[in-house]
């Protein structure tokens, strides 16, 4: 069975290690914050200038001056710091953030990613995505393996305008966990009940499958 959005987020959260600084993009990535294992702590960076993002506020806590990069009202966690946008991206660009998790339209075997622009559709802007993929130590792309029409999003070469080149090393989809290296996708894990054949069929770029591919542990 393909994973739900929540399940993808759950699997993403297993990547984090105790003490990691993590930037989560809008959508599935944001959900990962809900599934951080109980025995570890991560600190969330929000690129509008907040390190140590807390939960959403209660009605009483709502403060227009305290928002996240998605422009939602949030709180600051204990031990948070707040800084200006240049400092925030110094942190990101300088490789100090351990993990960035973000969505994508396409990823290819070179680790390039397209996530911000579909020609012919209105261009809203890249926000901080280009900085994030250029800067973070580890980038995890979360997306469905194929689009609504069944077309693979894991390509030999991206067709859409790029967000960054040669930067993606790990992809977590509704079907699989894959590593990107040596110009190929390397299958690491399957979603429970999903066959290697199905993944192969829905992966347009070169896929390498070595040995027995375990199912994801979803506890």
């Amino acid at each position, binding site marked *: 069975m393909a994973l739900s959005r929540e399940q993808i987020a759950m699997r993403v959260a297993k990547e984090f290690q105790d003490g990691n600084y993590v930037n989560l993009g809008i959508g599935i990535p944001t959900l990962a914050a809900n599934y951080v294992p109980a025995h570890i702590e991560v600190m969330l960076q929000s690129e509008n200038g907040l390190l140590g993002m807390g939960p959403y506020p209660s009605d009483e806590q709502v403060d227009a001056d305290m928002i996240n990069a998605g422009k939602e009202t949030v709180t600051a966690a204990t031990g948070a710091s707040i800084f200006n946008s240049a400092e925030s991206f110094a942190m990101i660009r300088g490789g100090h953030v351990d993990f960035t998790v973000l969505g994508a339209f396409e990823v290819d075997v070179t680790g390039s990613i397209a996530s911000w622009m579909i020609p012919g559709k209105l261009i809203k802007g890249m926000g901080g995505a280009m*900085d994030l993929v250029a800067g973070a130590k580890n980038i995890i792309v979360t997306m469905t393996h194929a689009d609504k029409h069944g077309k693979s999003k894991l390509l030999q070469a991206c067709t859409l305008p790029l*967000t960054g080149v040669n930067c993606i090393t790990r992809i977590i989809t509704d079907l699989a966990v894959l590593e990107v290296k040596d110009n190929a996708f390397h299958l690491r894990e399957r979603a429970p009940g999903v066959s290697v054949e199905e993944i192969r069929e829905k992966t347009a770029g070169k896929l390498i499958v070595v040995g027995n591919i375990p199912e994801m542990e979803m506890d």
Partner: protein
Amino acid sequence: MPGFDKVVTSYADAMHGLEDNMTVIAGGFGLCGIPEGLIAEIKRLGTKGLTVVSNNCGVDGFGLGLLLEDKQIKKMVSSYVGENMLFEKQLLNGELEVELTPQGTLAEKMRAGGAGIPAFYTATGFGTPVGDGKESRNFNGRDYILEESITGEFAIVKAWKADRYGNCMYRHTAMNFNPLAATAGKITVVEVEEIVEPGELEPSQIHTPGIYVDRIIKGSFEKRIERLVTSKGA
């Protein structure tokens, strides 16, 4: 303190000297930390042909979105402009030009502009449409593009507290681009919630030293929330 007292009492004085076709750098992220009264004054003045440098362009009917209503903006330099129907319409009509700039590059361009650094290299945007036509260069095995700094005739900034000398502090994440914009204006105008006397702010807690600030005005702020999410509603 005649020489360093930067307080002005009217918005007309605050934006005095703004002319058609100038570049205005504006602080704020979404609707958070925006100089509401200074934007309203630019609307009142009706200045046209502006290039506005700001991470976003407000929303329909609020923030910088107000300046679209009378087509005062010729060009926006932003990282994200997706919140605004009027923006979309003017863009598709060709009435408005947009230069999309990655958020971190935009912040650094403002800082560099204020800091006398004409250009810097960044990996952000290499190999993407943002890098098209820009010089690229390899340092230690990695590719970077050259990005030039931004300055403007005016910077409009929203702070929390400022003393009469122009020393500013920002509140929570309403800081965002404001301290950077403050450094990059030939004339920097700061709209604040509270004006205090020099000496009331702890020197090493000041976010924007007064040297960057030309005029201060006390404003009153609606502080509209773009996306209200609460723990109940989440």
